[in-house]
């Protein structure tokens, strides 16, 4: 594949896009595991929401 005289601009556009999307995906995944971990800790200490207790 020949990207011509402006290859740097094309490669930079793809690299930046991949970087931003990777950062976004990583942030969403890390946030999910953090919230799950905090909820797990709270439930381990038998602290639940009122709505959960009603359902028990």
């Amino acid at each position, binding site marked *: 594949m020949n990207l011509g005289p402006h290859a740097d601009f094309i490669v930079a*556009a793809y690299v930046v896009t991949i970087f931003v999307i990777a950062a976004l995906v990583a942030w*969403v995944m890390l946030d999910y595991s953090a919230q799950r971990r905090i909820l797990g800790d709270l439930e381990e200490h038998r602290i639940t929401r009122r709505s959960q207790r009603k359902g028990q």
Partner: protein
Amino acid sequence: MPVIDLANPSRVLVIVNRLLPWLVAVTIILFAIGLFRALNAPDDYQQGATVKIMFLHVPAAWLGMLGWVIMSISALGTLVWRHPLADVAGKAAAPIGAAFTFICLLTGSLWGRPTWGTYWVWDARLTSMLILLLLYLGVIALYWTAEEPGRGARAAAILSLVGAINLPIIKFSVDWWNTLHQPASVFRIGGSKIDPALLTPLLIMALAFTLLFVTLHLASMRNEILRRRVRSIRLLQAQKFAEVSA
């Protein structure tokens, strides 16, 4: 099942958990096809190989605006019906929309230098897109810095509705003002002006980016629902502690 049952946070969590693996798989497949077609697409007769930036820039621009449309609809849900899920959807869409708007501006700048001879020009399309990014940052700041989440949500909802004025300005800026940016060439009366050899990979990439947006939005909504559960448990904990101390 009544539609209203779907608007229950616990139900949403179940649906999202079921949907996400499928969405991730289809998104990856579409990106693989789209990138293969994009990187092997022929050069444009005027722009040469730099046309390959279009496959990133155009979908990012569409999704930057779609993010704000989602936030505006969610804002109505927050302000009119005060539905907590509307607020969850709005808050989850903001960083994703901001990221796509940022990609659009950056790739546009990298495309502008070899084709226009400049990275940036203060013309109507570019400036209105930059305003969209600043509006996104404003909404994110309102959501994340408000001490009481309800107040932050209402303020963010109002800004989302006010900022929606910018969407038609972005869309029609190339028609209303004399700009360096080209007018609409994909969705226009009279059909697309792009050759099918370039249009097909563009549409595949747009579909892949849209599915990525949907996947990230649903995953972020799930995170936000969990975050609110954590907050309500902690408030309960603090309340118990205050009762014991009293």
